[in-house]
């Protein structure tokens, strides 16, 4: 099976693998910067590093495919993304539907105290569910 990786390079010298590494590398640097900021008690510098690198990653992720001669994402990437998203929302739905209403009812009946952290989780799952429904409606209207 012959495989010429050079042919996937672009006029910018960016192939799919380099593109993905650049995007995720920037996100990784941002996260490390944030973590270092917390550990070194330099939260402002950490946050600035995170924001700069993550926004740079988003700009690279959006702009490079437009200026690249080589296809950096295609139908397979889309299918993988759709499957991963479906799996994520499936797991979130199982946890959300299977646990959250029970917690809410037990809390209302004073069988347990729902802490602020658990309420945060409940709101997060509820928000995610509403976002999914909204996105599903938008997608189904346009297809």
């Amino acid at each position, binding site marked *: *099976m*012959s*495989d*010429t*990786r*050079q*042919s*996937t390079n672009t006029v910018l010298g960016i192939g*799919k693998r380099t593109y993905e590494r650049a995007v995720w590398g920037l996100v990784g640097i941002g996260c490390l910067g944030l973590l270092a900021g917390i550990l070194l008690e330099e939260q402002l510098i950490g946050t600035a590093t995170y924001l700069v690198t993550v926004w740079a990653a988003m700009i690279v992720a959006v702009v490079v495919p437009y200026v690249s001669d*080589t*296809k*950096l*994402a*295609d*139908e*397979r*990437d889309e*299918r993988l993304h759709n499957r991963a998203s479906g799996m994520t929302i499936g797991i979130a739905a199982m946890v959300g539907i299977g646990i959250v209403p029970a917690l809410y009812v037990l809390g209302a009946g004073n069988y347990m105290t729902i802490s602020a952290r658990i309420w945060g989780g409940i709101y997060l799952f509820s928000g995610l569910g509403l976002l999914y429904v909204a996105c599903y409606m938008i997608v189904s209207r346009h297809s």
Partner: protein
Amino acid sequence: MKNHLTERREEAALSQGDLAEAVDVTRQTINAIERERYDPSLELAFKLAAFFECHIEELFEPDIDLDLAPVSELERNSE
């Protein structure tokens, strides 16, 4: 899905990158199809068949049971 993409591509002395560029996908997608880890969309299957100037059935062998009653038989039964 079993396919003959590797043979066709090698017969044409093309790299995976060359074929990917010709049908407008990434090299990784061609690699995944050849390794039978990814079934292409109908659009991509038609593009590949058009590129190699053959029918889709000559490139791909579906691993599903195609032993169905054809539409012509259904029409005959309903008459």
